[in-house]
């Protein structure tokens, strides 16, 4: 289907751009709130500013890269066991 005016509003490029803007605004707000909300860090690392934000992002990047590496070794076509 086309991404034209007749398709669902959610898939129009303009809506997607707006969603991205809203998303980034929310992300920025969440990090900014760290200045206001007091955390009670258990260890040293979780006391760093915006810990959950950058740690969550970093963890996902590492996990995706780890998965890519694992996949490079162990990926097979999905008919592998049918043969």
């Amino acid at each position: 289907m086309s991404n034209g005016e007749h398709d669902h509003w959610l898939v129009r490029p303009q809506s997607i751009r707006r969603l991205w803007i809203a998303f980034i605004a929310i992300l920025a707000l969440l990090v900014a709130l760290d200045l206001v909300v007091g955390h009670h860090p258990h260890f040293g690392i979780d006391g760093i500013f915006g810990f959950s934000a950058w740690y969550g992002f970093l963890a996902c990047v590492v996990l995706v890269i780890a998965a890519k590496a694992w996949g490079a070794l162990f990926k097979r076509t999905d008919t592998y066991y049918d043969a």
Partner: protein
Amino acid sequence: MTLELLPPGLVLMAGGLLLLAVRGLARSALLLLLPLLTLVLIWQLPDGVALGASFLGNDLTIVKADRLSRLFGTIFAIMAFGWGLFALNQPRSAELAGGYFYAGSAISVVFAGDLITLFINWELMAIGSTIVVWCGGQAAAGAALRYAAVHILGGVLLMAGIAGEITATGSIAFNAMAADTLPRWLMLCGFLINAGAVPFSAWLPDAYPEASWSGMAVLSAFTTKTAVYVLLRGFPGTDILIYIGLAMIFYGIVYAILENDMRRILAYSIVNQVGFMVVGIGIGTEMALNGAAAHAFAHIIYKALLVMSAGSVLYMTGKRKCTDLGGLFRTMPLTTLCGIIGALSISSFPLTSGFISKSMISEAAANQHLALVWVLLAAGSAGVFLHAGIKFPWFVFFQKDSGLRPPDPPWNMRAAMILFSAICIGLGILPGLLYALLPFPVDYVPYTASHVLSQLQLLLFSGLAFFLLLSWLKRTLTITLDTDWFYRRLGPRVFAGLDRVADSLWQSLAGGFATFAAAVNRGLHRHHGPEGSLGRSWPTGTMAFWTTVMLAAYLILTSI
């Protein structure tokens, strides 16, 4: 045998078998009423032994209730009800009967007061669940056989462990143990196989996704969570469980990231979620055990909800692969919404059931100053959002437009999804309802500004990572090899190789023997055949000659 009350699990099992005999309205009524009756029976159980029996000189405790068993019994009965509603339009009565038999035996395990009763119901559970997998159709037959084989192996380990334990201690009681003897290690292994612990996890993504559109929903709930229950009761605070649990968490994430089949994504994420519970059991403090139990409760509902939404898609489109799906939000709005609620719950989003349960496990790790465990659990939580929280709904309901325009599924399937969505959000808003049922008193407040903010940061920045890395996450027509490769590929290859070796050995042996036999035959033929020197007929003259020779010799010898 003293009968004080009906055993709840047995009622569901026996009633499930009745499903084979009835049709139409009676079948629907039975499907919906049986779990409710079971639930009432569970809530009527008093603390302590409610039903005993004597078997081979042992005093069995068929039903024994306490807070922990009642918690698991309750969620199992609720799950059975939701599944009965979802599967109301499943034409195969065998699957429904197998499903209730399976659920009933899981409830019987939870209320089993001794090791022998536990073992018997453990095995009945394996039979019921194998029938459910088997009902998935022709393609499921191989998976069902492999599933049965793995669970028979687990059962053998468990039985050997139980026999050793009874011999060593003289008691059949099932109490908290330390993994300090061989029989106890065997029992622990038997439990862990059912929990889907790495490296014995491959049976789960191999078998469950092959069940029917409804079958996987019932399978997702009982086997692994019954294992969580017996670990909670039998091996709380066993250190090694922390590391096994962490391995399960990251195994589930990595394999789910690589997976293309939506139902296999959900299967890997079961292992991932059970990993969190196993970590909690390994930590072993009251808060950690509460967290593991609460997470099992919440998980059963949101995982069933996710599997139901995937089942609805499979039912309406006949497709399971992300590469074939996408854009379904247009015509399946309710399924999409329910799938998203399940996805948010599994990701522990605030105001959902996952938020109030999983965080207790992390909190317990922090309280025990297990810094590395806490940091890894946080990474695992981010990874859950990545592989299940966004990946599942994104690739199934959004992504590209697959051109598929199926409507939402029939009313009963919608009703089951709405019910479970309501429970996910209800528990998220009113955590006290669940906390009141937990085995230990709860001294934990999930909704603090700090906790909500950190969780939102963790999840939404994981979401950012997902969309930025989307091109790396593109689905391909692939599977990723798992430990089942050893028995699905290496094993058969080794046997085929051995077969070839044996065959060639036999060929050369047989060939050698044939050559030898032919040589013998030729020799015999030469000497004894029609032309052979020993085979010729002798003329009378020759005989007379030799007789004369012998007589002459006799004459000479006697005259000497």
